């Protein structure tokens, strides 16, 4: 066990010439945060294509190194376990996004359409392609099997109305990463009053998604 055939000492030390580059560990932390945010939020979050691509690169690089290692090497088996763990987070992240895209496809596409120039895109290019195909496929199906056999004024449906929207009034659990002051809490009932709270760094809260949605995309809070 003492002599490891697998020399991994170079793998993660390639780009330290550039400053400001995320370390692989920071990259993985980013992916995990995006994963949990996506899992716990009622609506689709901004896409993190760069993170996905960088993680994929890391995994591919590591896997190709592992190909060259002789069987039964201890270091290699540890690397394999880590690769499996990261691949799980990555696929689970992409799955929860895809699930929301399928669940809310007309709304997701509508938001993408009405997005202002410069505003970050909700969908990655491949997710956008998928969402459009899903829309067309589903619409074509409904037409073929039923709508075209209905009276002339009922042969189409408004997908935006037919498919439920994400409920932004859902409650979420969150942890604060950067202190936020004066967050307005709207009343639940007519006899309550609105009030403001400060979100201290490190504190945890239960509140409506709508209230803190922008704080997720700028990284000030994370969902738990």
């Amino acid at each position: 066990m003492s002599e490891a055939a697998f020399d991994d000492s170079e793998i993660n030390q390639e780009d330290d010439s550039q400053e400001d580059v995320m370390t692989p560990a920071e990259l993985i932390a980013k992916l995990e945060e995006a994963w949990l945010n996506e899992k716990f939020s009622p609506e689709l979050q901004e896409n993190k294509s760069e993170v996905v691509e960088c993680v994929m690169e890391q995994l591919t690089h590591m896997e190709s190194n592992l190909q060259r290692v002789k069987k039964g090497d201890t270091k290699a088996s540890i690397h394999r376990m880590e690769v499996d763990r990261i691949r799980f987070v990555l696929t689970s992240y992409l799955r929860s996004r895809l699930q929301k895209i399928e669940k809310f496809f007309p709304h997701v596409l509508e938001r993408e359409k009405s997005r202002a120039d410069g505003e970050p895109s909700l969908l990655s290019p491949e997710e956008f392609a998928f969402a459009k195909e899903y829309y067309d496929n589903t619409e074509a199906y409904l037409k073929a099997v039923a709508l075209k056999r209905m009276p002339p004024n009922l042969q189409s449906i408004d997908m935006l109305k037919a498919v439920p929207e994400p409920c932004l009034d859902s409650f979420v659990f969150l942890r604060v990463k950067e202190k936020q002051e004066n967050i307005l809490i709207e009343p639940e009932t007519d006899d309550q009053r609105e009030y403001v709270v400060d979100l201290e760094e490190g504190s945890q809260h239960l509140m409506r998604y709508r209230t803190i949605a922008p704080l997720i995309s700028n990284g000030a809070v994370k969902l738990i």
Partner: protein
Amino acid sequence: MDPSEVEFLAEKELVKIVPNFSLDKIYLIGGDLGPFNPGLPVDVPLWLALNFKQRQKCRIIPPDWMDVEKLEEIRELEKREEAFTPVPSPYYMELTKLLLNHASDNIPKADEIRTLVKDIWDTRIAKLRLSADSFISQQEAHAKLDNLTLLEINTIREFLLNSLNCMFKLRSNLQAGSSGRTFTDY
């Protein structure tokens, strides 16, 4: 969230092991580990510690707090205080479970520890149920939940969030009442 996913996150926590083998530093994507030398304690993530342990390649040193005296203090404090007291680890329950299931021979007084942690957990979950109950009955819009762990939140997540959503829908139906459609194209 599936409990197996909470456990997955807990497995990232570092624990100290005493290896019985030598191995150079490992450059994992998530950070460096080692070097490993026989008899010299070293920090590794729990997933790796458990793997080594099962293959009899190490002894696990239990975390400082996994100690009867310390846990007794925590238990008393948890019972005394109305609020949630700080826990020794954000994954105290999962760590206890995993270490006691797979490395109990490395943990002195394992049975007592299991009971103490279970007591602490039960006290906290009872508090959590009470607060969830009052959150709903008071129709609160915001609650501070410091010191709650992910696993604890997970035990009430679905039930609480579904109830709140359901109540919200009932209330907004009561208030709106005017979502009448207009039929224009007969």
